[in-house]
């Protein structure tokens, strides 16, 4: 899974989308959607190994798994929200894209609240 393969697929999909865009703009959008999905499915293998290594390191350092899983959730949510928002923006629906991004932000904030409260408690305890 090298960079040349990724660039080749991306370029061919872009060219095909351009060809089809004159007659069928909806099919062109679907080509770009399919290309984005295929590229990310290819990258996921490497990402999975990175995530497992980070997990093992955190377990060895006896970190609390709640923090690492929250960070991973935030990364996942932000990626999916960005993926959907970008596709909608390509299709010309920037208002829907901003709504998707707003939803993503709210979900990430919801995930961050328990960590913030834990942080505040530790700070308050540390104060004399």
């Amino acid at each position: 899974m090298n960079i040349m393969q990724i660039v080749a697929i991306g370029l061919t999909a872009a060219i095909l989308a351009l060809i089809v865009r004159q007659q069928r703009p909806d099919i062109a959008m679907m080509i770009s959607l399919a290309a984005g999905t295929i590229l990310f499915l290819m990258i996921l293998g490497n990402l999975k190994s990175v995530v497992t290594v980070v997990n093992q390191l955190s377990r060895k350092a006896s970190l609390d798994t709640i923090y690492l899983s929250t960070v991973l959730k935030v990364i996942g949510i932000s990626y999916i929200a960005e993926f959907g928002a970008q596709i909608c923006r390509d299709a010309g629906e920037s208002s829907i894209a901003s709504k998707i991004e707003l939803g993503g932000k709210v979900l990430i904030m919801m995930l961050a609240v328990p960590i913030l409260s834990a942080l505040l408690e530790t700070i308050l305890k540390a104060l004399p």
Partner: protein
Amino acid sequence: MDVDLIFKIAAIGILIAVINQVLTRAGREDMAMMTSLAGVIIVLLMIVDLISRLFNSVKSIFHLY
């Protein structure tokens, strides 16, 4: 990986455009609309399982439930 899916979608798109032109020239606008709808639905079916695979793998990697 299923890179040929992109080529299949492009082929269907071009095919629909050609069929549309032929049918409109022959004076059958309704058939032209039908074929373009059918083509779009076929492409959607191909894309839906791809996206479901993407979401399942992201869910499994990032422990998103």
